[in-house]
C-alpha cells in the first residue's frame, strides 16, 4: 500500500505548498506547471525557479494549452535534466512523455512527476472565450461528486485512463470529498516519498478508492460509447473518411500539436510529397478535374497508421483543427483497435516495448 500525505489546505493551495516546499528546500531546482500570464489571463506552462513565482501558478487549472509530454521532450531532447525538476502534468501528458522517451525523444531522469486523478480539461475554445473562470465552481463540484463534466473536451469525457500510471506523486481529486479543504497526495514511489520528507502534514498508508475509480471508469466508458456513436465514422470505411476529411485544409496542425508525432520533418511536408505539374495535368486529362488538396486523406491515414499504437487520447488534435474535424474520435477508435490488437497501453510502462519494434513469432497467426 502506498503512503499518503495529507495537507490541511484545499487541493490547489496544498499542491502549491508542496511545490514551494520542494523549491525552497532545494529538493528540486525548478518547477514546471501552469501559470497565469499577464492581465489578459492567458494560461501557459512555465518552468519556475524562483519560489516567489509559485504564488502565480495554477497547477490544477483545467486547461491543456499544449501537451506537456511534448514540451518535456523538447526540453530533454539534447540530454536529461541536469538539475532535478518537479513537473505537474495530467495522466495523458505523462503517458505521452513515456511514449516519447521510448522513442528516445527525451529523458525521464531527474524529473519528479506529480499527476492527479484527472477530471479533464476545457477545450481551448473556452480559454479563448475567457469563460473558464465562470465554470470552475461547478467543475470542482462535479470532480468531488465523481461526475463526467459535460463541457470539457470530448476526448476527456470519453477518457478511461484518468488515473496516472507512472507518477511519483498522485493528487487524489476525482470522487474525493473535501478536496477544497484537504490535499491528498499518494506517494507512489521512493522518489515521491523522499521528496516530501520534512513537509508538515499527516502520513498514513492506504490505496485509492478502487470502487469509486471503477464507477468513474464505467461512466466514462458509457460516455465514450455515446459520443462515438454521434460521430460520423461508424464504419471507418472510405466513404465516411472522405466525407469526414473533406473539410481538411491541409494545415497539418493536428500533427504539429500531437505529442506522438515527433518527426522533425514530416514526410508530408517534404519535397517528396509534392506533385509536379505533370501529375496535375495527367489527372486532369484522366478525370476532367483534380483537387489541389488531393492528398489530405492519405495524410490522415498515414498519420493514424503512425501514431495509433501510441495515441494517448489527449484530444489536442481536435482542439486545434480549424475545420472542426472530430479527430479525437477517429484517433480514439483507431487507437483502441490497434492497442487492443497488441495488448498494449501507451505510456503505462516504460519497460514495455513499442508494438512495432517488438517481434513475437506467434503473433497474429490468423492474419498469416
Amino acid at each position, binding site marked *: 500500500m502506498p503512503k499518503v500525505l495529507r495537507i490541511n489546505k484545499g487541493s490547489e493551495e496544498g499542491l502549491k505548498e508542496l511545490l514551494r516546499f520542494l523549491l525552497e528546500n532545494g529538493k528540486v531546482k525548478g518547477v514546471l506547471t501552469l501559470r497565469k500570464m*499577464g492581465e489578459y489571463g492567458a494560461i501557459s*506552462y512555465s518552468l519556475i525557479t524562483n519560489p516567489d*513565482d509559485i504564488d502565480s501558478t495554477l497547477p490544477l487549472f483545467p486547461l491543456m494549452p499544449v501537451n506537456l509530454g511534448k514540451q518535456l521532450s523538447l526540453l530533454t531532447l539534447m540530454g536529461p535534466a541536469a538539475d532535478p525538476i518537479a513537473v505537474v502534468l495530467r495522466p495523458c501528458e505523462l503517458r505521452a512523455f513515456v511514449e516519447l522517451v521510448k522513442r528516445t525523444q527525451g529523458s525521464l531522469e531527474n524529473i519528479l512527476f506529480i499527476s492527479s486523478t484527472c477530471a479533464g480539461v476545457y477545450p481551448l475554445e473556452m480559454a479563448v472565450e475567457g469563460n473558464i473562470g465562470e465554470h470552475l465552481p461547478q467543475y470542482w463540484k462535479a470532480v468531488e461528486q465523481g461526475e463526467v463534466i459535460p463541457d470539457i473536451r470530448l476526448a476527456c469525457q470519453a477518457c478511461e485512463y484518468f488515473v496516472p500510471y507512472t507518477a511519483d506523486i498522485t493528487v487524489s481529486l476525482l470522487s474525493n470529498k473535501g478536496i477544497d479543504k484537504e490535499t491528498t497526495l499518494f506517494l507512489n514511489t521512493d522518489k515521491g516519498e523522499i521528496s516530501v520528507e520534512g513537509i508538515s502534514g499527516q502520513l498514513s498508508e492506504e490505496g485509492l478508492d478502487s470502487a469509486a475509480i471503477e464507477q468513474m471508469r464505467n461512466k466514462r466508458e458509457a460516455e465514450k460509447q455515446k459520443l462515438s456513436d454521434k460521430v460520423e465514422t461508424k464504419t471507418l470505411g472510405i466513404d465516411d473518411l472522405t466525407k469526414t476529411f473533406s*473539410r481538411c*485544409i491541409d494545415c497539418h496542425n493536428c500533427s504539429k500539436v500531437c505529442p506522438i508525432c515527433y518527426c522533425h520533418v514530416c514526410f508530408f511536408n517534404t519535397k517528396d510529397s509534392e506533385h509536379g*505539374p505533370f501529375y496535375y495535368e495527367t489527372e*486532369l486529362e484522366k478525370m476532367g*478535374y483534380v*483537387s489541389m488538396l488531393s492528398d489530405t486523406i492519405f495524410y490522415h491515414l498515414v498519420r493514424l497508421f503512425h501514431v495509433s499504437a501510441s495515441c494517448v487520447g489527449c484530444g489536442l488534435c481536435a482542439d486545434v483543427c480549424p475545420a472542426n474535424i472530430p479527430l479525437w474520435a477517429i484517433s480514439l477508435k483507431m487507437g483502441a483497435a490497434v492497442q487492443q490488437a497488441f495488448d498494449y497501453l501507451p505510456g503505462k510502462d516504460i519497460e514495455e516495448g513499442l508494438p512495432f519494434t517488438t517481434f513475437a513469432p506467434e503473433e497474429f497467426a490468423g492474419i498469416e
Partner: protein
Amino acid sequence: MVVTQKGAILAAEEGTEKGILNFIKQALSQGCFDAVLIPVRVPAGDSFAYFLIRNEAIFERASPLPPVMPVQGARAISSLTRRGKGKKRIVAIMRPCEARATIELAKLGQVDLENIILTTVDCPGVIPLSDYFENSEKGDEIFKDTSQKWNSKPMRPVCRICDKFSATGGEDLHIGTLGTKSGSILLIPHSSKGESILSKLGISLKEDISGWADKVNKLTEERKRERDQANDALRADIEGVDRLVEAFSACINCHNCMRVCPICYCRQCSFDSDKMKFTFEDYFTRAEARGRLMVPTDTLLFHIGRMLHMSLSCVSCGMCEDACPMAIPVAQIFAVVGDRNQEAFDYVPGRSMDEPLPLTTFDEEEFLEVEQSYTGVSSQQEGQNA
C-alpha cells in the same frame, strides 16, 4: 487600385456567380485556355477546395466567390507550378488578395506565371472559418445575403478593413461586380493575356465603366480610413515589448499561422529546425535569469521573426488569424506592422510583377534618417565634408 475607364459589360441574368461561370465556360470552349483553377464545393458540401477543372459537369459545383477561404489561392497556384510550369494554359479565378499573394510568390520564385492567367473578382470578404464550419448552410445564407449588399460585418476582421478588394493592376483580367446593375458584370483586362481572351471572344472594350470605378474609389477611401483607425486602435495595445508579449501570451507555438500563410513558403522554417533546439541547461539558465521561463519557449521570437520575413509581402488575407487555435488577432497585428513597413518602402505587395521585392533592391539614398540616428551625420553632410 487601378481603374481603367474602359471595359466590357457582360449580361449575367442568372446572377453574378453564374455570369462569371458562363463567361469562363465560353472562353474555355473557345480555347482561350485549357483548364480553370477555381474553388469547388467539396463532395460533403460543407467546404470548398481549389480544383483544376475542365469538365462541364464539375462547373456546377464551382464557385468564383465562395463564402470562405479554407486555403489561400496563392498556395494552390504554388502547388501547381512551384516545380515548374506545365503545358496547359490555366485561368485562375481568385480573390484580389490571393492574386496579390500569387504575384509575391512569383517574385520569390515559388510560382511560375507564364501559363497562368490571373483573374480576380471584386471581393466582399470571407466569413471566418470557425463561423462557417459551425454551420455551413447558415454560412452560405449569411454570405449570400451580406455579400450582395457589401455588408462586411460577418466577414474576417481584416476583410472589414480591406482597402484592396478590387483590381490592383497585377492581375491579367479583373471582373467588376461592385454596384453593377443587377444582371451584369464588368470585364477589365490589365495585360495582353487578358486582352487576348476578350478579343478572341469578340468582346469589345468600348463601354464606359466610370460608374463602377467611382464606387470602387469611394469604398476604397472609406476602407482606408477605417483601416487607419483600426490600426491606430490596435497599435496602442501592441506597441512595446511588454504589450507584445501580452498580445502573444496565449500562443501555443503551433506555427499554424505560418503554415497557412501564402507568403511563408519555406519548406523548413528555421523555427522548426534543429537551430531552435537547445540543451536543458540553456533553458534552465534562461529560466533562472528571470525566475521563470514560459513553455513552449521562443513564441514571441517566432512571431517577430515571421513578421520580419514576410510583412513586406503581407497581403492581409487573414488566413493566419482563422487558423490560430487561440484566436490571437495575428492578421490584425500584421496589418499594423505590414502597412507601416510597406509604406516605408512605397511598396504594395502584388501590385506589379515589375516592382522588385524591397529587400532585394539597394538604393543609396534610402532611409537616411535611420542612418543618421546611428552615425549622427547624414550622408549628404558627409559628402559636403569630403
